[in-house]
């Protein structure tokens, strides 16, 4: 390979060439400056020979011909090492200039990495590197240790205008002005000298000059003198095509002025001068020097013997004193000579000789620790720490030549100095080497670019920083290395920000916004910087890919109302099927809906069967979740939907609108319809106009602020105002008040929905967000006032349903249904203004309750003549009772028809949904057992436990339902329950006597009066009897359980228990316990309802506003129609010494059935008492042991008092026997009693249980078969009740 063709060779040939020192007088310079050129600049174009063709013979005997040759000309003042500061400045300037030139492509997008790899080598690394490297090399030129830059020759130039030119020549060699290299002995001062006389033809003819030349030749010798005539062109200026001086002129003066006084003769003269200087003087001189030096060095150093000698003797042989930099090598030292020899040989192209000399001297320098020189010598083969940049660069060129880019990159990396700018350039070059290496090392490429960019940025070389970072972007683009990407984008953004290119800065800053993986401090930094750039840009950005906040697409939820309308937002959370099942009895069946299809069917509807329907003027609600991925709060404002509404005046047009995306106009609403589907900001800008256009629909705007990591469900609405097709395209928001983000509910969402299959069956997913807007319709708004969210079980409240129709068109045929009639009862219209709870109290004038008009399946029909319209709301009373504890989802459906028959929809449905939490309050249980000593009477044991957390409850009243029951307290309430209130967690028990009342007459206590009323039980199914549990009757009249709403709720409770409303036939009793929480402990949450309600009804007794109604349904103990009671003495004193004791009893038997009963009483003697006791225990179905135990203890205490210690259980022999027949049969007529006398004989004192008898009964039906169905039990056996008799011995 021809070394001259490689970049390394080229560089070496340019850089390592003989230097000629030029000494000149000011007048010479003056003449040259007429051409805007210095003297050196004038000569420079001719110093480069490509074909000098000079024979050279150096060390070897074989001459060769030198073809390429170049001279470097320097003024004597420039022959010194450049000042380090100046050099740096110069380098910086080069870099800055290069940066300025780069500006053109700053704003383009970074290339893709594959494109970069495909581009050619020269395109990859910027061209200014060469300039920079050259400048960098120049900073280390003219060092004392290498002979490349040591002047080989010296040219003295004097003008012909100078006085005494000969003396001037001598003066020029005044050593004061000469460079230090010559003076301090690093260089041989005896160099080749050449004398040139410059004559300016403008100053006259050259006669005088010729004369001086002759004089010069006499003085300095014939060969070394020259005459150079310049500025030969007379008067006119010469325009040089392809001006040869232009490349050499660094400052930018207009190039056509250069050399305009130099004509072709001058041209040739200069050329000849240089040619002669080179070929006849410099080359032969160097040739000669090489030969001489080679001879000397061969004699002293080459060969084995010399090397040994050198090792032994060289130390201490130095004749120059050590300086701080190590030993100085003067020109006369052997080392210098070797070095000069090597350099000269190199310059003359004798590379063999040069290399051998370099090797030789490198060992010497190493030994002397003259590192500076060592490095200089090492430059062609290895690296050095200091002063090594230049040799590094050369080395790199060499490696590059060998395609060892990876190694070259390593070298670049190693010649990075502490200085940032310098290392930035080196790192950047290193990165390109990594890119060029085979295979490309892209990771390292990126890394070094980032390193370099970082350094550039620190040095304020912003444009360079941008370039390197941008290249790095191409490496990291599309990879998940988010930390690195963030860093790169952030710095690019900052850099562009410095340059004021805010748009580009903005796009880069966008990339780092969603940096949830970064630390909080970094997130803050990123966001702050982002907002700063936005602020500096001073405008509002609109971005399609704004990643802040994150939009959770799967959370998208659309609420709209067609014929189904909703009272509250939460209503839509209920499943459609639940609503459907509620509504199915109310909605007219299909044929009726079609009766008037001729005029009613809208032309619109059949066409878009799949589309959703919404009504003009009614809002469509969209809920979508915004999530802040960062740890720092962000504020989002002006969140609104992007919608389009195309009117449907032109049908074909509207059809097309469904399928095509684009812009179209129609006659009525121009500029409305723009679909944003692609990343197109121009389109988005149009969208903004649409949003501001409020003529066809209106949008809601929401402002939210999201804390760190917070997610917020945003409710947005769009309200169409005209008919047409409405499409919801997306959502827009404003981040921190300055950046507008857009999000399109694209097709991906729809697809996802299909996959999940969550869409309602009716709507096809493709137009999920598309709505047909029909003309505005009346819409009922419903609201239940004061419905509590939380209530205790049994809580009873009077509520008002308010229905409002804002449109002028009336609605009619209202129907209503509730999902839980146990909880919510529909009242009567006259109940509306009732005072609660006073209305519950018994009143003297009782009117027969009229049931509300309930159609089949629990649908309530509002009065036919009722229509809701305009400002007047319809108020309707409702009764609420929290039936059972738990969480209740309460649905109310109201159906209504349009008053205007021409509307597109015939009916609509208002759906109301409430969630209730019902807390447990009182837990009531009853135990009923026959009263032992009375006929047709029962003992009721009521256990009440307060299950609330903190509430104190006062138990007010216990009522029985049913006309034939009477209840009364066993003991006065004061004695058993003095505190009257039951605090949380407490329980109390209470005994009542339940009596079977007469069928026809009902005794009711009203106040203190006893009144008897005739009643027809069919009208009063709920009439019962009450017992007040409040001792002081002043608190008010007892509550009437026979009227609405209590009766209504009671019916539903019975329904719930699956019991028919047929009280007469049942031996069951229903209890209603009325209690109220004491207001002192009322919970705040409940207290609200309390107050609201008191506003309506109660003006004085707030504690009355809350009632807990517990309805319990219990069966009486005996299902037998036969009841009996044994009557007789309980204790008897008898003197057993005389005879046994006979005791008489009377058994009264009552037949409560409608049939004739035949009864057989059997007395049993044989079985032991214990057996009988156990029998009795098992036979008692209710199993109320407490009572018998209580009796036992009473008897026991009695026995103790009488000092009688008798065993209750005597042994084998029965201590008493029944007298008389063991079986007695009687017949009892319906509803009548009979008496049977009984007698026992007791043989010894003791306490006896006279329960060892059995009653067999058999009902014989009456002839009329009125109540056949009710005769559930026609015969049976009843065991005897315990009856204790104590017989004491009388003394």
């Amino acid at each position, binding site marked *: 390979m021809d070394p001259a063709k490689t970049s390394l060779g080229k560089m070496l040939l340019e850089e390592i060439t003989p230097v000629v020192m030029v000494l000149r007088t000011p007048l010479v310079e003056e003449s040259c400056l007429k051409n805007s050129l210095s003297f050196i600049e004038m000569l420079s174009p001719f110093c480069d020979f490509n074909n000098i063709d000079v024979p050279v013979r150096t060390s070897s005997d074989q001459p060769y011909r030198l073809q390429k040759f170049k001279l470097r000309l320097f003024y004597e003042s420039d022959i010194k090492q450049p000042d380090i500061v100046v050099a740096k400045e110069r380098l910086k300037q080069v870099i800055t200039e290069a940066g300025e030139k780069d500006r053109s492509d700053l704003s383009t997008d970074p290339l893709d990495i594959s494109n970069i790899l495909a581009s050619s080598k020269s395109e990859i690394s910027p061209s200014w590197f060469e300039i920079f490297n050259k400048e960098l090399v120049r900073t280390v030129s003219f060092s004392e240790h290498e002979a490349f830059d040591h002047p080989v020759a010296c040219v003295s130039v004097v003008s012909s205008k100078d006085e005494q030119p000969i003396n001037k020549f001598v003066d020029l060699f005044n050593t004061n002005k000469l460079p230090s290299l010559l003076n301090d002995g690093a260089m041989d001062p005896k160099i080749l000298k050449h004398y040139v006389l410059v004559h300016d033809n403008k100053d006259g003819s050259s006669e005088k000059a010729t004369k001086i030349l002759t004089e010069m030749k006499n003085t300095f010798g014939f060969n070394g003198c020259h005459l150079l005539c310049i500025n030969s062109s007379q008067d006119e200026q010469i325009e040089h095509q392809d001006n040869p001086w232009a490349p050499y002129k660094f400052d930018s003066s207009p190039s056509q002025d250069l050399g305009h006084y130099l004509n072709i003769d001058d041209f040739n003269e200069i050329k000849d001068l240089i040619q002669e200087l080179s070929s006849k003087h410099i080359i032969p001189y160097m040739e000669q020097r090489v030969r001489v030096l080679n001879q000397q060095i061969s004699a002293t150093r080459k060969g084995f013997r010399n090397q040994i000698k050198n090792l032994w003797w060289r130390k201490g042989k130095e004749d120059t004193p050590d300086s701080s930099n190590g030993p100085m090598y003067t020109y006369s030292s052997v080392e210098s000579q070797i070095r000069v020899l090597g350099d000269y040989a190199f310059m003359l192209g004798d590379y063999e000789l040069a290399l051998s000399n370099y090797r030789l001297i490198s060992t010497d320098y190493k030994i002397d620790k003259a590192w500076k020189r060592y490095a200089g010598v090492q430059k062609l083969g290895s690296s050095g720490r200091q002063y090594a940049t230049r040799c590094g660069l050369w080395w790199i060129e060499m490696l590059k030549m060998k395609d060892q880019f990876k190694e070259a990159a390593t070298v670049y990396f190693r010649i990075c100095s502490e200085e940032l700018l310098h290392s930035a350039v080196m790192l950047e070059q290193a990165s390109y080497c990594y890119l060029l290496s085979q295979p490309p*090392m*892209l990771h*390292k490429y*990126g*890394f070094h670019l980032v390193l370099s960019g970082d350094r550039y940025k620190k040095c304020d070389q912003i444009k360079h920083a941008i370039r390197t970072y941008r290249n790095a972007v191409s490496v990291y683009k599309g*990879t998940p290395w988010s930390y*690195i990407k963030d860093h790169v984008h952030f710095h690019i953004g900052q850099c562009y920000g410095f340059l004021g290119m805010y748009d580009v800065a903005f796009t880069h800053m966008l990339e780092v916004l969603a940096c949830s993986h970064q*630390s909080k401090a970094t997130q803050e930094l990123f966001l702050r910087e982002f907002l700063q750039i936005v602020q500096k840009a001073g405008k509002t950005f609109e971005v399609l890919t704004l990643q802040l906040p994150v939009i959770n697409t799967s959370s998208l939820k659309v609420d709209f109302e067609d014929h189904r309308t909703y009272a509250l937002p939460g209503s839509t959370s209920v499943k459609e099927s639940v609503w459907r099942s509620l509504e199915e009895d109310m909605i007219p069946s299909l044929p009726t809906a079609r009766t008037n299809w001729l005029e009613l069917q809208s032309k619109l509807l059949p066409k878009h069967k799949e589309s959703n329907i919404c009504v003009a003027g009614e809002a469509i609600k969209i809920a979508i979740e915004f999530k802040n991925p960062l740890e720092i709060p962000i504020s989002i404002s002006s969140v609104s939907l992007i919608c389009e509404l195309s009117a449907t005046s032109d049908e074909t047009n509207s059809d097309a609108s469904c399928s095509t995306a684009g812009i179209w106009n129609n006659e009525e609403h121009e500029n409305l319809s723009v679909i944003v589907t692609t990343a197109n900001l121009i389109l988005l800008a149009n969208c903004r106009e649409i949003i501001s256009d409020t003529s066809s629909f209106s949008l809601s705007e929401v402002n939210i602020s999201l804390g760190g990591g917070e997610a917020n469900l945003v409710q947005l609405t769009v309200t169409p105002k005209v008919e047409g097709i409405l499409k919801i395209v997306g959502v827009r928001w404003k981040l921190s008040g300055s950046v507008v983000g857009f999000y399109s509910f694209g097709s991906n969402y729809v697809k996802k929905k299909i996959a999940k299959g969550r869409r309602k069956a009716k709507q096809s997913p493709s137009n999920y967000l598309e709505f047909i807007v029909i003309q505005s319709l009346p819409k009922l708004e419903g609201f239940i006032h004061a419905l509590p969210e939380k209530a205790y079980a049994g809580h009873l409240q009077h509520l008002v349903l308010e229905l409002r129709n804002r449109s002028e068109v009336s609605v009619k045929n209202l129907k209503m249904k509730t999902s839980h009639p146990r909880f919510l009862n529909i009242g009567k219209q006259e109940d509306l203004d009732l005072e609660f709870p006073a209305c519950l109290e018994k009143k003297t004038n009782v009117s027969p309750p009229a049931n509300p008009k309930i159609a089949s399946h629990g649908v309530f029909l509002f009065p036919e003549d009722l229509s809701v319209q305009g400002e007047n709301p319809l108020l309707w009373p409702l009764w609420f009772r929290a039936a059972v504890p738990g969480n209740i989802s309460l649905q109310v459906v109201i159906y209504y028809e349009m008053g205007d028959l021409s509307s597109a929809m015939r009916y609509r449905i208002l759906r109301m949904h409430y969630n209730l939490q019902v807390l447990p309050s009182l837990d009531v249980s009853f135990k009923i057992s026959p009263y032992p000593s009375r006929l047709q009477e029962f003992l009721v044991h009521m256990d009440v436990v307060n299950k609330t957390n903190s509430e104190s409850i006062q138990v007010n009243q216990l009522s029985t339902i049913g006309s034939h029951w009477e209840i009364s307290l066993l003991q006065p309430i004061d004695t058993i329950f003095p505190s009257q209130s039951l605090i949380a967690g407490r329980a109390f028990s209470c005994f009542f006597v339940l009596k079977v009342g007469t069928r026809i007459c009902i005794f009711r206590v009203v106040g203190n009066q006893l009144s008897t009323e005739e009643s027809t039980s069919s009208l009063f199914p709920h009439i019962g009897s009450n017992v007040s549990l409040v001792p002081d009757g002043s608190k008010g009249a007892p509550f009437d359980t026979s009227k609405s709403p209590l009766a209504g709720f009671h019916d539903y409770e019975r329904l719930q228990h699956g019991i028919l409303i047929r009280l007469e036939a049942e031996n069951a009793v229903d209890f209603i316990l009325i209690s109220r929480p004491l207001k002192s402990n009322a919970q705040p949450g409940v207290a609200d309802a309390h107050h609201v309600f008191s506003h309506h009804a109660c003006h004085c007794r707030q504690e009355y506003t809350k009632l807990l109604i517990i309805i319990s349904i219990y069966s009486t103990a005996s299902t037998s129609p036969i009841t009996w009671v044994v009557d007789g003495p309980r204790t008897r004193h008898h003197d057993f010494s005389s005879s046994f004791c006979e005791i008489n009893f009377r058994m009264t038997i009552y037949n409560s059935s409608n049939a004739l009963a035949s009864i057989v009483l059997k007395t049993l003697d044989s079985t032991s008492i214990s057996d009988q006791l156990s029998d009795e225990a098992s036979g008692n179905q209710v199993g109320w042991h407490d009572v018998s135990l209580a009796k036992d203890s009473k008897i026991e205490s009695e026995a103790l008092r009488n000092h009688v210690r008798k065993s209750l259980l005597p042994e084998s022999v029965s201590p008493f026997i029944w007298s008389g027949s063991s079986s007695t049969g009687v017949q009892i007529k319906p509803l009548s009693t009979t008496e049977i006398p009984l007698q026992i004989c007791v043989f010894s004192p003791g306490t006896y249980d006279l329960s060892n008898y059995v009653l067999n009964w058999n009902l014989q039906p009456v002839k009329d078969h009125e109540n056949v169905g009710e005769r559930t039990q026609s015969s049976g056996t009843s065991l005897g009740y315990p009856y204790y008799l104590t017989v004491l011995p009388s003394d």
Partner: protein
Amino acid sequence: MIVCVAVVGHQNNPLYIQSFTEADDALKLHHIVHCSLDVVDERVNNPKKSGLTLNETFLGLLYPTENYKVYGYLTNTKVKFILVTTDLDVRDADVRNFFRRFHAAYVDAVSNPFHVPGKKITSRTFAERVSNIVKSFGLSSAG
């Protein structure tokens, strides 16, 4: 001391990077790990030159930076493990041992049916296990 361990997927996507220093040097370590991928590629593509035998998973010292030594390991599913340490005198056996245990932990982590292959490893158990391995690095053979 181990400064950082990383798992890099076969498409050179980071699956797990955990630094064990107090300093906020995530970016630096990311860069180091990212750069070392070049060397991994080089080693893998020229197994003869780098002296790797066939089926050898341990890639050895990838490159020394000024302050760190970077070691690599390549599983047979082309998942790379990178270890960055500040210890200048590390025994090869220690590193091999470390990678062997690390590999076991990784296999367990990706065997989790809830782990999506190619996605970042978020398992807390894995993180704990790795930090245990890191803590015990060099102790077993030294003691």
